[in-house]
């Protein structure tokens, strides 16, 4: 037992920090390979990536990948975590023993800003000077020895994508004892004095008191009140800030200016740049990809290719998965006698989980494209191009990526909102993301189009589908605009977007990301979806009709779900829906695509797979009301489609929103507003259509 504890203590804790786009994850992946795991920091939804690797003496080291950040002054949840880990403020994450500060050599000045702040932390720092090849291509020669001397810490030149520099990096990390930084960024005297005085007042370990005092001094009223809760500290900080202003210095900009002045000195000594401003390859690519006309063509082309692959290429593995699930259900069915247990396992658990798991290929393809676009640097350009449109409704260019992902599935869309800095903007994006028509709506659209126009040609089908997609997009933008003006009122956020140089995407990075994401997706399917499928099965099964030979349709009508359908009828009658459609709505509350299979049970249609909806279609078309009128009139069909465009109807999304917002308020509000919107939409179609004289 003691040896175990000792071992844990001697494992060196390494944290890897750096700006976004500096190659941080490439170094992390190269060091740890598959020995990494992804979790969350407790209470926040920022990803915590940890891994293990071996130092140059074969000793195990623990590596923590900090979220990319530009500064220790926080603007996003991600940056808050980086700051808190480095200051040792997170209870379950030990303060690291050494920091790898990854620096993009081709963008040295801006990257050194974070390093300047890291040097204040009194922790050993190893600078990984990454992408030296790119810097050389740009005609920039870096004198590593001079840089090492000026920074006062080890500097390792690296080309992470080609595996260059890792041996030296490990040697530097295995050093014992690790040297603390020999240099501290000089601050104007008054700031230095005030920070020291303020640090005395902070009741924390002296190592971190000074950098924390510097952070506090740079803060303004609101941010200050958030960070320093004690009145005493706030007052002391404000007084110090006043004294600094008295000597005509701004407590915040003086710090930033001092760091950049120091950086300029460092670069002057260590970097020689030719004077010419030749246009790099990356700038030339940008000339095309952000061109007034060509830029749009490239953008639409990239989106079209992505969705083509998601909707067509993914179909093959989806069919295999579907077949595998059916096979498994049949195998279990053949091993068990006919009983409730068999029904629960096959119709409930396996079918329920299977319906979600079949979307795995689409999600993998989506993440492949998102990974390639992100890693190549194009994603920032997409935000650059789209920002104008997004800012019209008060959102950010960065909200575009989550909304785009939501066309495949809202779950990755909601998870992609993590990069949005402002909490309110992030919430607005989460709230409207499920309005984008995801692929789970396709089976419902397909069925309703078939009922609406039995002999629809490809053009008619595509036209109706397109209308539904457009309706979702318009609804998302209108609701975002509305939320930004009412519930989550805030200024249109400032855009501060780095456009990194284009580079070849690293397949390893993309593949690891796909691997990681599919793991998260499958874990959810195995837990939340599994539990939910069992409960829904119970609702649709109990209580049983007294006649054991009752047809499945009668049994369903007798169950709780069936009774709920009846109870729902008064609410949905204004939409032209009857109680059978009500059962379909309730059955598909957890997952939209279940509507198709629920309808086939309601209407007693045996074969009900996606490929063959003709029997169900014909039954539905022939279904009559008590007074002899058709149930599925064109208005009801369109109303149902509109309902499914706008309604939440996806428990996986509810679960992920609950996790991402860490509260039940937002997912419940989302269900509420989307259901209301769906009801109003279907109401408008049905009643408006009747007023206009349609059927």
């Amino acid at each position, binding site marked *: 037992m003691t040896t175990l504890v000792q071992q844990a203590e001697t494992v060196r804790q390494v944290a890897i920090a750096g700006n976004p786009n500096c190659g941080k994850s490439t170094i992390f992946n190269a060091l740890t390979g598959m020995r990494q795991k992804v979790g969350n920091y407790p209470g926040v939804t920022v990803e915590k990536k940890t891994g293990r690797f071996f130092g140059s003496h074969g000793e195990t080291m623990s590596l923590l990948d900090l979220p990319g950040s530009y500064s220790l002054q926080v603007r996003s949840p991600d940056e808050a975590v980086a700051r808190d880990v480095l200051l040792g403020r997170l209870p379950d994450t030990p303060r690291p023993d050494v920091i790898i500060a990854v620096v993009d050599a081709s963008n040295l000045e801006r990257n050194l800003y974070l390093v300047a702040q890291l040097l204040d932390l009194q922790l050993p720092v190893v600078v990984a000077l990454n992408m030296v090849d790119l810097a050389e291509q740009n005609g920039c020669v870096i004198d590593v020895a001079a840089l090492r001397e000026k920074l006062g810490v080890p500097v390792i030149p690296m080309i992470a994508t080609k595996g260059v520099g890792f041996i030296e990096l490990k040697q530097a990390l295995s050093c014992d004892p690790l040297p603390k930084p020999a240099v501290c960024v000089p601050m104007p005297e008054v700031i230095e004095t005030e920070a020291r005085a303020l640090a005395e007042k902070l009741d924390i370990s002296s190592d971190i008191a000074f950098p*924390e005092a510097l952070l506090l001094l740079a803060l303004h009223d609101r941010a200050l009140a958030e*960070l*320093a809760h004690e009145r005493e500290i706030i007052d002391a900080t404000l007084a110090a800030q006043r004294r600094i202003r008295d000597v005509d210095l701004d407590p915040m900009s003086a710090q930033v200016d001092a760091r950049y002045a120091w950086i300029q000195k460092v670069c002057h000594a260590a970097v020689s740049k030719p004077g010419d401003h030749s246009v790099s390859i990356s700038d030339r690519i940008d000339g095309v990809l952000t061109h007034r006309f060509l830029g749009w063509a490239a953008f639409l082309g990239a989106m079209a290719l992505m969705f083509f692959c998601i909707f067509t290429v993914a179909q093959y593995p989806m069919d295999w998965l579907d077949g595998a699930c059916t096979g498994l259900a049949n195998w279990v069915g053949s091993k068990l006698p006919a009983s409730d247990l068999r029904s629960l396992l096959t119709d409930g658990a396996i079918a329920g989980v299977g319906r979600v798991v079949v979307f795995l290929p689409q999600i993998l393809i989506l993440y492949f494209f998102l990974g390639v676009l992100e890693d190549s640097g194009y994603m920032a350009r997409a935000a650059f191009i789209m920002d104008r449109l997004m800012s019209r409704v008060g959102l950010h260019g960065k909200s575009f990526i989550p909304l785009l992902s939501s066309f495949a599935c809202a779950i990755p869309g909601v998870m992609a909102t993590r990069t949005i800095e402002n909490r309110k903007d992030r919430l607005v994006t989460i709230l409207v993301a499920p309005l984008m028509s995801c692929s789970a709506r396709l089976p419902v659209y397909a069925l309703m189009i078939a009922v609406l126009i039995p002999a629809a040609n490809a053009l008619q089908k595509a036209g109706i589908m397109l209308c539904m997609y457009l309706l979702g997009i318009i609804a998302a933008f209108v609701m975002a605009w509305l939320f930004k003006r009412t519930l989550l009122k805030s200024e249109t956020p400032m855009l501060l977007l780095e456009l990194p140089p284009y580079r070849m995407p690293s397949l390893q990075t993309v593949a690891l990301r796909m691997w990681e994401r599919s793991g998260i997706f499958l874990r959810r399917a195995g837990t939340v979806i599994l539990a939910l499928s069992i409960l829904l099965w119970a609702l649709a099964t109990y209580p049983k009709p007294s006649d054991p030979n009752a047809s499945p349709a009668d049994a369903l009508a007798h169950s709780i779900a069936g009774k709920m359908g009846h109870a729902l009828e008064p609410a949905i009658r204004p939409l032209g829906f009857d109680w059978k459609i009500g059962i379909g709505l309730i059955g598909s509350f957890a997952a939209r695509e279940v509507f198709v299979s629920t309808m086939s049970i309601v209407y007693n249609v045996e074969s009900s797979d996606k490929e063959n909806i003709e029997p169900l279609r014909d039954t539905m078309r022939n279904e009559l009301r008590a007074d002899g009128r058709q149930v599925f009139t064109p208005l009801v069909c369109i109303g149902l489609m509109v309902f499914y465009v706008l309604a939440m109807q996806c428990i996986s999304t509810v679960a992920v929103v609950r996790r991402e917002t860490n509260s039940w308020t937002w997912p419940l509000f989302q269900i509420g507003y989307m259901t209301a919107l769906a009801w109003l939409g279907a109401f408008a179609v049905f009643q408006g259509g009747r007023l206009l004289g349609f059927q």
Partner: protein
Amino acid sequence: MSPLVDHILVALLIVGALAFFARRFFSKKKSCGSGCCDVGKPKIGR
């Protein structure tokens, strides 16, 4: 398999699923989730 065992197993699975959600629902919140706020974190000037 006897109908009794069958019923017990079904009931266990349903109760298990309910318990799963109950546990999630009542699990303690540690922060507002935005990551920006400092609920549940040690404060800087303590």
